[in-house]
Structures are given as structure tokens and as C-alpha cells.
């Protein structure tokens, strides 16, 4: 029997889950809860109304942190990329800030914003800002000169040039950068919530452990984080299929 290609990964996951359940059942010492335990854990979270609340809290922080970073970093990156002198001035500073993990900012985030949403949003912002800035800068460098010259030839105003040539030309690369960066944001929010706030999926994980070693809830949180991360990536990926961006992903 030949299985449709799309079903193969699903089948593989099912097989893994079965092995997981068997392994857990044959070792009652329980280093991990079994998949059924995790399902019950998720059901427990839904029953208490926590699942939706925590997912919304995490997505809320990611949305704001990511959106603020995108609004600031993309125009700034495009401008710096366009004016090479600006880039040269900023470059050393960028290279110093870039390797600092966003998690290193946690104490400062709490010092500035206290324990709460703002601190978490700030951490996500920091985690997203530099990757987006660098993406935008390199996207400008990669615009073929011929598009720029063709745009200039038709006598566009600066505003028109930016909206009708510059943005469309960097669009495909920006989307790839945003996709990767959203992944980073989703990593950072979990860590930020373990320390800087009292809600969200990261808080769920650390709280489940601290408040009674509920490892079924810990793993439940991990599964939910993974699933939502997958959905976010899927959503960003669907932008790559928009017709006016698609040219950037195929060999021409």
C-alpha cells in the first residue's frame, strides 16, 4: 500500500507517539509523562481556562515586540543600507549589540519596566530588532542596479520611488527575514515569561514545575509552543506565495 506523501510525516509522528507511550509504560520510574498524560494535561489546562489565556498572553507580547521592532528596524535598515555612509557609522555598534543574547537584557528589562508585559515586549523587541535591521540593510544591497535605474528613469518622486521600487524590490528578502525573526521572537517570549511575567506559556512551564512538579503540564506547554511556532511559520510562509513576491524565490 502506498501512502500519500503528505501523510507520511503524520504517520511517523504517530509511530513515535506509540513508542513514547510504550517506553513510558515499561519504565514506571517516569522520567517523562507519556503522550496520554500530556493530552490529559492539555485537557486540564482547557478546563481551567488557562490554555487560551496563556496562549493569548504570549501571542500578545510577541505581536507587540515583533511589530515595534519591524516598524523601527525595517525603515532604519533600508535607510542605512541605501546610504552607505550611515551604515559605516552604525556598523561597529551593530556588531557589538548583535551577538548579545536577548536574554542578557532580562535584568535591565526588569529594572526599566518592572515585572510585566512591558518587560517581556521589550525583550522580544530587542531580540527582533537586530536581525530585522541587518535583513533590511542587506536586502537593499542586493537590489539589482537595473531596478533602481529603471525606477529613476521614470522620474518618480522620492516617496513614489520608495513605495513603488524600493519596497517591492526588497519584499521577498524582508519576508524571509521576518519569518526567521518571528521564530526568534517565539523563542524569546518563552524565556522572558519564565522570569519577567506571571502569565503566558513560558510562565506555565516554570510554574507547573515549581508548583508541584506537574511535568505533564510542562510537556503540554512545550507541545503547545511547538504547535503555535509551526503555525506562525506557516502563516509567514504563505506570504511567500503572494504573486508580487513570488519572483524572489524562484530561479529566474
Amino acid at each position, binding site marked *: 500500500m502506498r501512502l500519500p506523501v503528505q501523510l507520511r510525516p503524520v504517520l511517523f509522528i504517530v509511530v513515535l507517539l506509540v513508542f513514547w507511550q510504550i517506553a513510558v509504560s515499561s519504565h514506571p520510574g517516569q522520567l517523562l509523562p507519556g503522550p496520554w498524560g500530556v493530552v490529559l494535561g492539555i485537557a486540564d489546562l482547557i478546563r481551567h481556562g488557562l490554555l487560551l489565556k496563556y496562549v493569548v498572553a504570549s501571542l500578545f507580547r510577541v505581536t507587540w515586540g515583533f511589530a515595534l521592532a519591524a516598524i523601527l528596524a525595517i525603515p532604519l535598515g533600508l535607510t542605512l543600507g541605501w546610504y552607505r555612509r550611515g551604515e559605516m557609522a552604525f556598523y561597529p555598534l551593530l556588531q557589538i549589540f548583535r551577538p548579545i543574547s536577548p536574554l542578557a537584557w532580562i535584568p535591565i528589562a526588569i529594572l526599566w519596566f518592572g515585572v510585566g508585559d512591558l518587560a517581556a515586549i521589550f525583550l522580544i523587541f530587542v531580540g527582533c530588532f537586530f536581525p530585522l535591521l541587518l535583513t533590511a540593510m542587506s536586502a537593499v544591497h542586493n537590489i*539589482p542596479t*537595473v*531596478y533602481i*535605474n*529603471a525606477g*529613476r*528613469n*521614470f*522620474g518618480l518622486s522620492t516617496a*513614489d520611488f520608495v513605495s*513603488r*521600487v524600493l519596497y*517591492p*524590490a526588497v*519584499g521577498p528578502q524582508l519576508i524571509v527575514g521576518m519569518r526567521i525573526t518571528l521564530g526568534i521572537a517565539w523563542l524569546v517570549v518563552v524565556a522572558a515569561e519564565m522570569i519577567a511575567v506571571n502569565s503566558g506559556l513560558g510562565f506555565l512551564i516554570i510554574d507547573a514545575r515549581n508548583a508541584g512538579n506537574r511535568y505533564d503540564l510542562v510537556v503540554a506547554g512545550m507541545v503547545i509552543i511547538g504547535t503555535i511556532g509551526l503555525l506562525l511559520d506557516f502563516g509567514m510562509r504563505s506570504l511567500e506565495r503572494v*504573486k*508580487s*513576491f*513570488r*519572483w*524572489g524565490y*524562484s530561479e*529566474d
Partner: protein
Amino acid sequence: MSLTEVVIASRPVEGKLRAEHLGMVFERDGTSMSVLEDITLDVADGEFICLVGPSGCGKSTLLNALAGFVAPTSGTVTVDGEVVAGPDPRRILVFQERGVFPWLTVEGNIGFGLSEMSRTERKKRIAHYVQMVRLQGFENSYPSDLSGGMKQRLQVARALAVNPDILYLDEPFGALDSITRVIMRGELLRIWQTERRTIFFVTHDIDEAVQLADRVVVLSSRPARVQDVLSIDIPHPRNISSPRYLQLRDDLLKQIGLAYTP
């Protein structure tokens, strides 16, 4: 006496496009390299000029200077007596490759320079040029779905749509296969004969030059100077096996130093 009438580059006649003592020097790593030297040209309104020369001699540099994309180190370019200070929609440059915007459809590309126009006017203009370059049925296609020849026709249509006085073409058919290239020459001539723009066409293809041009400007190797200007006095449509055609072609090959010597 040779049948070839050699016209001296600096004719005293006032033309549409004039380059006067154009020079271009590039500075790189502290050394300066002269690319263009004392180029003087005069192009009449509606004339079809082909520019040929050895590869790397500076043909594209000259074209970019004429079109205003780079400022010459010395000398001036004037159009209708007005000094060219930068690119201008009255003079459109058609690039060899990738010149169309891949994020716009055929219609979007042709209408790119027409944003000031009213919707209906714009629609009409786009439809007219879609027809002229024979892209009917592809109005909503993206360039990635077009062949190389269609993309170049699209670029020509986008250029013509803004009603330019001068069309600069930088080896526009250089990346096409030889059959498509021959077809495109015919198309360009047809368009030129109906629209009567001034055309300045850079090519490395001697046959292309002799088939298309009213006059062929021959550049020397770097630093490029105007080596010669040949008038092609054969009416269109040109018979490419006529003795006159072959003779002009040989003259041009001789100019470039590629003549057949038994």
C-alpha cells in the same frame, strides 16, 4: 572612390541629441582610467543610431552618460539644446536583462510611468502598447511567466508608453537566442517606423547594426573615441544578401579590424 559615404561625426547641423567632447575617467584604487575620450556626436530627430565597438570599450558607459545615469568627467550632453543633468522620462533606457519589474504584471509594467494619468486614459494607453508589442492575452501575467523575448518587448512597451523623445537601448537583444533576435529586430523596426522616435542602440552585433541603423557609430578600443560614423544608405526592408548590404557589413568589420583577409 568608395561607395561608402563616411560622415564626419561632428557635423555642424544642430541635432536632437548632442554629445560634445565627452570624456569619462574612472578613479579606482588611486589610479585613474580613461574610458571615454573626446566623444562628439550629433543625432538628428527620428534617427536610428547604432553604436558598435570592441567589447569593454565603454559603449555602455557612453550610453549611461547620454541617458544621464552617470555624469561625464568632461564635456556635455544636450537634448534639444538643454543640458542633460540626470535621467528623465523623456528619454528612456532599455536594459539588456532584468529591466522589467518582476513584482508587476505586464499591465503594471507598461503602466509604471503613467501614474499621473486618469484611469481610463491609462487603460487605453496600456492596451495600445500591449497590442503594439503583441502581448495580448498576457496582460495579467508576471514577467517570470514570459520568455526572454517577451520580457524585452515588455520593456520596450513600458518605455514607449511614457511617450519619450529618445529611446536608448543597451544591447537589448544580446541575451536572446539568434532566432528571437532576428524577430525582435523586425519588431523594433516596425515600431520605430510607426512611432518615429530617436533611437540610440548599443550592440556588439555587426549584422544587427547594419540591419537597423541609419548611421553606425564605431568606437575604438579603450579609451573609446569615435573611430568612424557610417551611413547605411539602404532603404527598409533591407535585403541582407544584397551586394550593398554585404559591402557595408564588410566595411564595418574592417573598421573593427575583423575583416576577412585571404
